[in-house]
């Protein structure tokens, strides 16, 4: 899966228009990266990547690329 495909998954998860997110986008500026999105991300990681993600790990996500790098 390419980084662009991962970003597309995140956009779909957060109901964002395609092309809204870039790797360098600051998550603090993304209103849709809220608690519900984080829950959805935990479920997405488990179902798609078979990987657990903790609240502490998500706190370390500063930009979109941090999330993308985790999605493997």
């Amino acid at each position: 899966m390419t980084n662009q495909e991962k970003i597309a998954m995140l956009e779909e998860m957060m109901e964002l228009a395609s092309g809204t997110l870039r790797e360098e986008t600051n998550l603090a500026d993304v209103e849709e990266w809220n608690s519900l999105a984080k829950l959805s991300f935990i479920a997405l990681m488990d179902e798609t990547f078979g990987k657990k993600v903790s609240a502490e790990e998500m706190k370390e996500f500063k930009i979109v690329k941090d999330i993308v790098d985790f999605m493997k």
Partner: protein
Amino acid sequence: MLILYLLKMQNAKEISDKFARYALGKFLNINGNELVITKNQYGKPYLVNYPNVYFNISHTKGAIACTVSDNPVGVDIERIRKMDLRVASYFFSQQEKDYIFASSEKANQRFTEVWTKKEAYLKFLGCGIKIPVEKFNVFEILDNELIRIHTEYNHDYIISFCNISNEAPDKIVMLDSNSII
């Protein structure tokens, strides 16, 4: 007394601080810009010079809510939208899931309602999401006579707030963005 201030505008997150100060100023009948706001160790904001006045803020796409009360309070606002309902199986108790999936109709709305109740409770406690959200059941909290979780529906939005007060009246104040910016 608890007052819920509500503002609908795009990019509401950007004016979060201004909005809180405006709401607090109205509640206290002072200039909110003079208030000293800081955060506890878990990130919950509080007023330094008004230890008996509590507030909490929540924002979502297109709206922001602020509760102000003379008792500790937590608030959460979410826009009702299509949810990945599989998330419920990870984070919701059996009783919560039974409520959400009672019928397919309005399941997204009930999911959002339960989530805002959970979030409002956690924000009321003021300790961040230290308690795993799947470890408690909002319906058990609703049975607790000392804690109240109230939910308001406002068009596409659901707002829940949690506090210990049963003092009436609660009041909802719709604010105009022009008066804040």
